[in-house]
């Protein structure tokens, strides 16, 4: 494997990891506040559709992004109503949201565009294009650092940088601000927050909303940056992988970065090396396809200890039985 190949694989890792990272951080806010969310997939899908649809209709990718975030927020409100206000089962609500998004996106897409549940292809100005760093071209030929700078670091869409910037930001918010302290507390022991005179409901809604915003960005990234439009079910299970990454990361921001990069990397490797021959034996493509999942299980079994979720996670806060 030569150096350039490594760079390319890492480049692909970054692209594949970005939606996972955004969704994973989204889940992190929500679950740190005690609201489990298996509806990440649905929110991303919803956002992917609405961002593409609005970007196409208005020709503005920024309006698209806003629409994606707004639509994801709508689902967040539903989740909040079900799991915070009405103290329902958070898992059921998440499952319902996934179904709702899968059905609604296609239904609306068909109603609006009559193209069988997809949006028309977005023109370039309705997409997030790559951002080229200064001197990227000039430095391309510098050995080692050149390709790292111009291939790996430069040339991604804005949302990729946003996603990566969200990691330190999330860490800072959670561990260095009043809001973060309260948010973590409400996921561990809401009664402590309540008796300290802070609104449990308010905090939890805030967390669920942040989750919605990040899922919205993730969806918009899929439909308007990586792709040029919406295709039904285009999230293809990434919300669930993000959830796995979140558990893997033990609900911590920097770990979330590593976990999603690892998933992205394993996928990139599997995509790149689909047909490996060992002597006369060709490793079946199916094996390479499932390799990331096998490795995940192996890593989980071998290196990562018990992951302890936030203690109040999944439980509605009920004062009076």
């Amino acid at each position, binding site marked *: 494997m030569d150096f350039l190949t490594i760079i390319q694989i890492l480049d692909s890792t970054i692209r594949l990891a970005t939606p996972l990272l955004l969704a994973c951080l989204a889940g992190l806010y929500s679950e740190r506040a005690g609201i489990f969310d298996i509806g990440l997939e649905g929110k991303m899908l919803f956002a992917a559709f609405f961002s593409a649809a609005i970007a196409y209709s208005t020709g503005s990718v920024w309006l698209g992004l806003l629409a994606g975030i707004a639509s994801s927020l709508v689902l967040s409100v539903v989740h909040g109503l079900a799991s915070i206000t009405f103290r329902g089962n958070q898992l059921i609500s998440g499952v319902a949201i996934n179904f709702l998004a899968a059905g609604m996106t296609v239904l609306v897409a068909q109603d609006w565009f009559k193209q069988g549940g997809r949006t028309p292809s977005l023109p370039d100005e309705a997409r997030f294009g790559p951002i080229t760093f200064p001197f990227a071209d000039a430095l391309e030929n510098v050995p080692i650092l050149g390709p790292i700078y111009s291939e790996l670091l430069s040339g991604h869409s804005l949302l990729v940088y946003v996603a990566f910037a969200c990691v330190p930001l999330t860490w800072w918010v959670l561990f260095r601000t*009043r809001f973060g302290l309260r948010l973590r507390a409400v996921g561990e022991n809401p009664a*402590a*927050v309540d*008796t300290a*005179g802070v609104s449990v409901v308010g905090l939890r809604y805030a967390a669920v909303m942040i989750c919605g915003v990040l899922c919205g960005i993730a969806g918009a990234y899929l439909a308007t940056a990586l792709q040029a439009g919406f295709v039904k079910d285009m999230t293809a299970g990434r919300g669930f992988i993000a959830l796995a990454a979140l558990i893997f990361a033990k609900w911590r921001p920097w770990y979330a970065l590593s976990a999603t990069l690892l998933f992205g990397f394993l996928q990139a490797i599997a995509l790149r090396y689909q047909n490996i021959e060992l002597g006369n034996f060709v490793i079946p493509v199916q094996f390479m396809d499932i390799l990331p999942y096998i490795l995940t299980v192996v890593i989980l079994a071998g290196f990562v200890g018990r992951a302890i979720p936030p203690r109040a996670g999944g439980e509605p806060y009920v004062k009076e039985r």
Partner: protein
Amino acid sequence: MTAPAIELKGISKAFGPVQANKDISISVQPGTIHGIIGENGAGKSTLMSILYGFYKADAGEIFIKGQKTLIPDSQAAISAGIGMVFQHFKLVENFTVLENIILGAEDGRLLRPSLAKARKELKHLAEEYELNVDPDALIENLSVGHQQRVEILKALYRQADILILDEPTGVLTPAEADQLFRILDRLREEGKTIILITHKLREIMEITDTVSVMRRGQMTATVKTSDTSPQELAELMVGRKVLLRVDKKPATPGEVVLEVENLRVIDDKGVERVKGIDLTVRAGEIVGIAGVAGNGQSELLEVLGGFAEGTGTIRMNGTEIPLSGLGADGQARREAGICHVPEDRQREGLIMDYTAWENTVFGYHRNPEYQSGILMDNAAIQTEAEAKMERFDVRPPDPKLAAKNFSGGNQQKIVLAREIERNPDLLLVGQPTRGVDIGAIEFIHQQIVNLRDQGKAILLVSVELDEILSLSDRIAVMFDGHIMGERSPDQTDEKELGLMMAGITQEPEGDLAKVVDQQFALQEQEREGEANG
């Protein structure tokens, strides 16, 4: 006369069909300590939670310092100068002390300045009130006593001048309780108003100025402490005459039932908690283990009960039983004739979501008498449960009710009914009366003594010295994983036991409680070191 610090008028509160408070009125003078007593489930905690804005009353008014005050949430209570230490602490377990203190009382959006300020303030408060805690320790690594200090500090940090304490001494050792009372005294001198809920009449007599008695959601009496007696209070509370001391004949110890040699236990954090214990318990005697919480008593019970592993030798009626691996589980212990009333009835002794009848066979559910073919004989279990609940006076006597719907005392009775009625050769009992009201304590103690009188061996672990002294025929004191010594209850007293519990076998100079406290701090430091190392 000044306006009362607190005045509640006509407070009512229902939880669904349960009327927890009925038209309660009470007034508390500033600068006094006001006690509230009442049976389990009488509605004490509910009333205080309403005052603190945790629950909303269905009806009634609250006056603070003569001003009518609306308290829709805890924020309002805090701004009205009210602080509360709940029966079940409201702390975030994996946060540090400092973080818990500032939670909800931060200045500004960033944490760093708040933390710095709180650290200074905390040091100040600690000095002033002898409330020492390591501000950077995680709550989950603190003893219950220290956790309580954090709760008090939380209230003081918020400049509360009305402090509510809900059963604060239920989890404290006598020394810790003494220290707490000195702090309360101090606060009273400063003019703060304190409401103290407790089941212990001795404490009421010792420290309060006035006392109110609650029964079944209503306030039945409010009297000046100096005008009443424990006996009278107990009767007001339970509605009948109560024996305040255990009535028991001298023991007639028989054969050795349990023999423990060089028992060692290492917990899952890798800390050695029991460091080589030798102990025997004979038929027909109660051996009490005294000690400050966290000195290995829990682990001792857990290993004997089969749900933790250890090394060493245990013989039961002369037969050795395994301490780890196969055959070292609760099931095997029960077959060997060991029954166990665990320390924590809610986490261990009961499945809170199971009905009472299901709980009456918990741990014995594999016994042949409960099977019919491949199924469980639920009808037989229910009939038996009904009889047991009747005998142990569990209220309400409804076996179909889920365990979580019983009050703490009644939950404990269900566990006791299950374990004592097994008629075991050896009964392990941990904290049998924690958080239980006087009426129930009397009953529970009686049952334990009865079992002894039938010639059974009993090993009792309790942090209540009173309880140890009045029940035990022999007392062993544990400190730091060792047994410091054994005493007979009529040769010793609280003072000596207290010293032994602090690891001191000689009469020390100075204040007993202080020494105990210092010792505990040292011990904790040491343990932290071990845990980190």
